């Protein structure tokens, strides 16, 4: 019966094909389909003379088309190519002018203005600006005035952190809109910027870190928490209940717990409905490390232009609830692990403070201007993130200290020694010999910052030696000198004393940890309860959180980061308080890596000879330094370590001849 029907179908098909063919190309050979394969679905027939079919694109067809010029943007619609003028940004760099807030201002507006004014983009001159920023967060009715340099909205970014404020009060013209959770219907991809919906009390700077304390979910954690309509969360029953989230089953609470407050239950996934107001819950879940499962969101995910949300969240179709539930239950642990970690990385990097949100929005616009020199996607979507990996340094991930493993690579085998000779320093002849003796040394650069002229002759070394004169500020020791030819830098002071063994071993260790600082002498920070402030000590204790840059290996990228990314206030601090640069550099690296530096063993000598830059008993100025740096960062990025990396046979009772780094063993 069925085969009969199939046969007749087959015939009909054949006939129609013949008709079609004959109608157009009467000269073609008859097309005969191949016989059906046994068992398999029959599929689209294979025509024997398919080769004779004509191409959809006739040769010579296209050239006859009438080529067109671009059309002007229609109906007030804008896209990047049509409505943004990049010429201003190329000459003067990416400068942002912010309109002073019109009275009355909201607190959020104050926060935004303050954070941009402190950034390195800010300019007070509207004429040299590449981007004009207008915040619309004032109470309704107070924002209907078109600003003075409006210029039809060209090169303007209108910032709306609250979706409700000031909508439609004046024509946006050519302006871009950076809005909190914009609706997908009005959002213009590649032109507007989608911001996160922030709670009123979101901190300006620093911000609370992600709440995840472990990589994998605790075995006792629930699979799924649901965002409830009335606020709060509820742990979902995931057995066979057919409607765990459509709201109709609320009477059937059964064994579920109800969380009336805003606190998030300990769950692996957080199910969030697609309504615009639920964008707040999205951020909440992100911070908690609860993998957001969004059901057909009607709003654009924040920073979707650059953030690959498939790595941190699941956007599912609300019409297929059962399928979603099954998929979550069956999701392999590897994927769960990856999603969880990504929520934390994204939260800490782009969302935890107003400052980060604003900087991210600006960075996105800067990337559009940079075009081919913008951040590659990898830099946006893996630690430390695009705000700490500057595309002006390089667009190749391999040039940064963070991505060697992802790129299947490792740091090159040589370093540059950078010796800072300060005002009281002597030519560091012994040090040069010790460093030049290392098989890994590629070059030695002496940064001569002394009032006296440098000596005319320097010792003969196996590697090139270059004297760079005339840098007076201590912060200049971290300048990205173009003469530095290697990824690894050994930063030294004129009075540092190291042996070749120490240098060799420390460098080999650095190759295993190229994103960290590897040093010999350490400091340790602590919270001074009595004074209510941060302090630090040079005393030898069982842990440490900073290494001194008077003898430390690190990646040359940190010179770029130090010179080009520090906010204005911290740069001023570095210039005013020279001893503070060590602290600053350690903060910067810790903020990027979220890991402690690495200590390697050092001989007795330089522990006895307390170098002038090591404040044994740190004076008030030094104490002030760490507190001010912490305030500038908005949080305390330093992380403590309790270990030291020694050579494998370090001080073991075996023949010293077996040991590769025997220089480290000398009393």
């Amino acid at each position, binding site marked *: 019966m069925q085969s009969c029907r199939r046969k007749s179908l087959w015939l009909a*098909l054949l006939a*129609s094909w013949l*008709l*079609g063919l004959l*109608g*157009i190309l009467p000269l073609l050979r008859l097309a005969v389909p191949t016989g059906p394969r046994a068992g398999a*679905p029959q*599929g*689209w027939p*294979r*025509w024997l003379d398919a080769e004779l*079919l*004509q191409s*959809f*694109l006739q*040769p010579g*067809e296209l050239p006859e*088309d009438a*080529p067109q010029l671009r059309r002007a943007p229609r109906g007030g*619609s804008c896209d990047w*190519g049509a409505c943004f003028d*990049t010429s201003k940004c190329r000459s003067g760099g990416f400068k942002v002018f912010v309109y002073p807030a019109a009275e009355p201002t909201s607190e959020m507006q104050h926060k935004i203005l303050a954070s941009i004014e402190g950034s390195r983009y800010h300019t007070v001159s509207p004429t040299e600006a590449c981007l004009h920023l207008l915040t619309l967060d004032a109470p309704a009715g107070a924002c209907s005035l078109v600003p003075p340099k409006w210029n039809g909205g060209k090169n303007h970014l209108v910032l709306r952190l609250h979706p409700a404020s000031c909508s439609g009060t004046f024509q946006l013209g050519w302006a871009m809109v950076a809005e909190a959770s914009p609706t997908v219907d009005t959002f213009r991809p590649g032109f507007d910027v989608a911001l996160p919906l922030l709670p009123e009390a979101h901190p300006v700077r620093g911000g609370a870190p992600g709440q995840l*304390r*472990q*990589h994998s979910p*605790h075995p006792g954690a629930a699979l799924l928490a649901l965002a409830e309509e009335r606020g709060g969360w509820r742990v979902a029953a995931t057995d066979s209940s057919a409607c765990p989230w459509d709201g109709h089953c609320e009477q059937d609470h059964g064994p579920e717990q109800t969380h009336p407050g805003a606190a998030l239950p300990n769950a692996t996934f957080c199910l969030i409905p697609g309504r615009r107001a639920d964008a707040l819950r999205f951020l909440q879940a992100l911070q908690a490390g609860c993998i957001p499962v969004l059901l057909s969101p009607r709003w654009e995910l924040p920073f979707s232009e650059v953030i690959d949300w*498939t*790595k941190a969240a699941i956007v*599912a*179709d609300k019409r297929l609830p*059962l*399928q979603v539930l099954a998929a979550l239950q069956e999701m392999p642990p590897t994927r769960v692990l990856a999603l969880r*970690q990504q929520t934390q*990385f994204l939260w800490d990097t782009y969302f935890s403070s107003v400052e980060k949100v604003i900087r991210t929005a600006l960075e996105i616009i800067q990337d559009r201007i940079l*075009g081919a020199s*913008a951040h*590659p*996607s990898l830099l946006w*979507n893996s*630690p430390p993130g695009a705000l700490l990996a500057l595309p002006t340094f390089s*667009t190749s991930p391999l040039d940064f200290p963070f991505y060697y*493993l992802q790129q*299947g690579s490792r740091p090159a085998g040589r370093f540059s020694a950078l010796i800072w000779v300060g005002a009281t320093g002597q030519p560091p002849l012994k040090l040069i010999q010790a460093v030049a003796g290392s098989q890994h040394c590629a070059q030695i650069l002496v940064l001569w910052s002394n009032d006296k002229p440098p000596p005319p002759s320097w010792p003969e070394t196996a590697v090139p030696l270059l004297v760079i004169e005339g840098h007076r500020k201590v912060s200049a020791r971290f300048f990205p000198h173009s003469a530095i030819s290697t990824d690894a830098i050994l930063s030294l002071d004129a009075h540092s004393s190291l042996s070749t063994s120490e240098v060799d071993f420390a460098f*080999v*260790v650095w190759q295993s940890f190229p994103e960290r600082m590897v040093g010999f002498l350490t400091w340790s920070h602590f919270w001074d309860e009595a004074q209510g402030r941060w302090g630090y000590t040079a005393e*030898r204790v*069982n842990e440490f959180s900073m290494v001194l840059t008077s003898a430390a290996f690190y990646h040359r990228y940190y010179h770029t980061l130090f010179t080009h990314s520090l906010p204005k206030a911290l740069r001023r601090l570095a210039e005013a308080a020279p001893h503070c640069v060590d602290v600053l550099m350690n903060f910067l690296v810790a903020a990027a890596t979220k890991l402690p530096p690495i200590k390697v063993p050092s001989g007795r000598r330089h522990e006895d000879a307390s170098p002038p830059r090591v404040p044994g008993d740190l004076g008030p100025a030094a104490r002030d330094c760490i507190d001010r740096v912490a305030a500038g960062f908005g949080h305390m990025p330093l992380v403590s370590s*309790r*270990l*030291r990396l*020694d050579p*494998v*046979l*370090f*001080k073991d*009772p*075996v023949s010293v001849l077996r*040991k*590769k*780094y025997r220089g480290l063993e000398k009393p």
Partner: protein
Amino acid sequence: MCLWSGCQPTVPKNKIKVFIYSLKKYVDDSGVPVSNTISREYNELLTAISDSDYYTDDITRACLFVPSIDVLNQNTLRIKETAQALAQLSRWDRGTNHLLFNMLPGGPPDYNTALDVPRDRALLAGGGFSTWTYRQGYDVSIPVYSPLSAEVDLPEKGPGPRRYFLLSSQMALHPEYREELGALQAKHGESVLVLDKCTNLSEDVLSVRKRCHEHQVFDYPQVLQEATFCVVLRGARLGQAVLSDVLRAGCVPVVIADSYILPFSEVLDWKRASVVVPEEKMADVYSILQSIPQRQIEEMQRQARWFWEAYFQSIKAIALATLQIINDRIYPYAAISYEEWNDPPTVKWGSVSNPLFLPLIPPQSQGFTAIVLTYDRVESLFRVITEVSKVPSLSKLLVVWNNQNKSPPEESLWPKIRVPLKVVRTAENKLSNRFFPYDEIETEAVLAIDDDIIMLTSDELQFGYEVWREFPDRLVGYPGRLHLWDHEMSKWKYESEWTNEVSMVLTGAAFYHKYFNYLYTYKMPGDIKNWVDAHMNCEDIAMNFLVANVTGKAVIKVTPRKKFKCPECTAIDGLSLDQTHMVERSECINKFASVFGTMPLKVVEHRADPVLYKDDFPEKLKSFPNIGSL
């Protein structure tokens, strides 16, 4: 879209099912055919779908429907009648869940950027969308297929500097753009080449395969391989087949077509393979391109070629990529990742994506779970339990009882310790039982410890845990071992001598993340797991391989300890003094290296000691004074 039950659970899992309508002839009221018969490409496209996992011949199970009405090229269509033909499809329902493929939309004089056939709710896979017509997250932007892909044999040319820096090969360009290109050529001389159609070729030469500059004749598409950057300008339409030719030649496309939605832009990262320049900035294009470093250019050339190979070179590639994109929207939890779409195979091979990539030091309070594998050495086992229970951060102790012939001692005989102690009985005496992800493991940190390891001090173990917290993605162990390349024998060799290097740690006592238990049990490559169980050896080497391979990182050896000496053990460190044992261990390394297809172990020259270890400092002020000996 895809509202129907057809999209619910399917076999194979998470795959949409696509139905193709059979071929029919559609005529209008006066009996004139509505459209041409199908084109070669549309036939290929339907064949490709029909051969794929997506295909179903059961219309009731289908979630997506593809008509056999060819709308690839709007030039050949009668708009109104085609719409009527579509409406006659048995499941049309205003186009719901129907997919139309169109590469050349619009027609003179305005050339709309999307197919003009009214399609209602149907999904459009279109070539040449603009930002105005593209419905993000709904439509799919596809390439305009270049028939030259099949006609011309063009051997691959690697990346690197080429004769021309910038080339324009398109024939139909607006005079204004041609003028601007001419100005670029005048300014930059021979590094810019602007080609046009040839006017004085003899008739038998195929004009689409030739391009001319003044009187010079060039072969197309071969000439594209002579250029680093190739201009892809808008013609009458935004989507141009030349894009495909350019990618194939490994020439980096310079796309000058404002508002054009690049093919598969939903998943492909075009920044890696192209330069998009606003039309207004055409005059600056040379300087914009010059600012790109050579290394990045070569990367883009490689990427361009890879995009062509994977997503442009055949109609099949285009069809399958389109269906994959739609599939990923419906099954987002099984979607293909950015890396899988974008990384060329060479990058995918070499790169490592650490499963524990987040820099996070777990809180000390979490503690660790000690897992003791034991067979019948009860006395020694009890001593290990007593010793380990003194470690402050121990939170649970799990005894894996691997003896099926004998029951564990009754509860009252076990040492009384301050943390929960659980005994798990196994079904078979297998070494891999030590690395099973037991539900009882509640902490992330696991201490695997043999039932005869009684020499480790409490300080030593606590310090090991502290080190693991700082390196939670690594194996943290005590005695270290090394693999060496034996040049004479041309194979790997196991080394337990006093060396300056380590690449493995013994798991007789080692801390690691419990996730690696999951990997060991369920994701160990090849037959390694069974091989270990059959040989009753090398489970530790297998674990070292596994962790190094998945993280790309070395082990951390802690403290000076070189071997596990225990009073009861006879001539043992494991068994390793034994000569045959060494041979066996070497064999394991060779076996595993061949299964992994690489040598994942990383050699380092450091170990971790407490900060003040062996420093001249009062012992009582040190956190870990009793760090043990060799």
